């Protein structure tokens, strides 16, 4: 059986305050640090295309207002505002394709 030899160097793994010398798996090396959810950060819940942006930076928004129309799975999804506040930053433009988990809009 052929092996990928790109993963054979030894690293360190800390468990219960003890440092072990061992190879680290690809998935372990690729893991992302955990980020707590920020209430005002609006993230795409599905990959798709931005059809329309309904707010501008500085717009006052209420929880439940539509922010963006995201086309995915042949449907226009209205991305709602999770909190009441002011739009701090719009990270997208119409026509953009976004993957799942992309930061779309920040509300303060």
């Amino acid at each position, binding site marked *: 059986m052929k092996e990928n030899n790109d993963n054979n160097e030894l690293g360190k793994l800390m468990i219960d305050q003890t440092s072990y*010398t061992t190879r680290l798996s690809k998935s372990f090396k690729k893991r992302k640090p955990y980020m707590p959810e920020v209430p005002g950060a609006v993230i795409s819940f599905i990959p798709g295309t931005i059809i329309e942006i309904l707010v501008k930076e500085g717009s006052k928004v209420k929880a439940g207002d539509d922010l963006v129309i995201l086309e995915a799975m042949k449907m226009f999804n209205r991305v709602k505002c999770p909190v009441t506040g002011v739009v701090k930053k719009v990270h997208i433009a119409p026509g953009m394709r976004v993957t799942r988990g992309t930061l779309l809009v920040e509300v303060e």
Partner: protein
Amino acid sequence: MALEKKIRELKEKREKLLLGGGEEAIEKQKAMGKNTARERILAILDEDSFCEYDMFVEHDARDFGMDKKQLPSDGVVIGTGTISGNPVAIFAQDFTVAGGSLGLMHSRKITKIMDHALKMRMPLIGINDSGGARIQEGVNSLAGYGEIFFRNTISSGVIPQISVILGPCAGGAVYSPALTDFVFVVENISKMFITGPEVIKTVLGEEISMEDLGGARVHCEVTGNAHFFASNEDECFSQIKKLISLVPRNNQVKADACPTLPPDSKYDIEKIVPGDPTLPYDVKDVIRSVTDGSEFFEIQELWAKNIVIGFGRMGGNTVGFVANQPLEMAGVLDVDSSDKAARFIRYCDAFNIPLITFVDLPGYLPGVDQEHAGVIRHGAKVLYAYSEATVPKLTVILRKAYGGGYIAMSSRHLRADFVFAWPAAEIAVMGPEGAANIIFRKEITTASNPDEMRKQKVEEYKEKFANPYVAASRGYVDSVIEPAETRKLLLHALEISANKQESMPAKKHGLPPF
């Protein structure tokens, strides 16, 4: 005279059918590095042992112009034969005939050979090479898949079931391999997925190649769906033959024994494991230092490498090995390694294969991703599988066995029959560093030199608990042994437990955490 003519007629009919989808289609198949369905069967089985059934089966679909289409043997070859003299049932989908698509009669041929395999209590080998459901036959082809899945399930744990993916196997079709015991794949030939790259692109906008989505390497390294990786079909066929030689033909018998061979003297068991419990080594060398001829047939070699599983022989008989691998991720248990070990333990238990477990692990892998991926329920599978297994369970604690990991790895408490420990074994709730910091927190924080005090307390803890004798004093370890005695004692334990009788309380079935 009349009979001679009839025989000639039969020969002509056979010759035509043996060509499957015809020479042009065969050429295309060859250009992809693939053998034809019948070539594959002949390569796996003993010479001259194949007996083909249902060569003359035809479909009777009428819609969408199917009434005018002839599909030789309806795109699948079935029959029986032997591998090293052991009977097996086999089917191979013929991609040269309508892309190996599965229609009603195609599925009836497969279920016929599956029923035969179960009735005759012999292994079933299924070679998958099919574009999927024969859409022209509508719900009949879905019915066909359902009948196959049902038989895979009821045969599970009765006869060994092997799936060989030698072409596309997509959509619902993948669930037959997923229900079987072992899946063999070949680089650049095997493709397995529920929804293909095209659908993923249209629906989700994600672009990925077929190989990256569901190729052989992905299923061996990432998903864990496949068990054996080969670079070409010939290598795959020898792996299948090897596996068949190691497992019993059904759950009522034991695998064929071989003459006993001593291990290769190049594996010096005392030199493999470093004394420092934080240093790595390859636990496969420990396995090879005890098996007959130092042979070890590893399963899922490329996935969840922090645990090693596979078959070897001891005293001529097949044994299943489960071992933490300190060389990979320090040998921790995590979601994937738990899943991998638990399924293998259940396989061995179903087929009367004794289990030998080599323990050397620091515990479970910490991390948000692990917790959120459900390491609780996945980790529980190992406890469940070991507890429920009634085959002989022999455990050797090589070095560290900390915390929940100690309990999970075939401990006395899960009814291991023999628990041996090497003299450097450390059986404790956690490693000395972590433990000392908790037990002596007050002493350490209030000391004038906390670092010095910590060192002293770690040493104190090591002295007191980081050894096998505390566990041995309670009878949790039967014997503290010299590494060089390992093979001898394992052979003894296997002999002693050859007629082990243990039964579970009557129940319909348990509820393992899956």
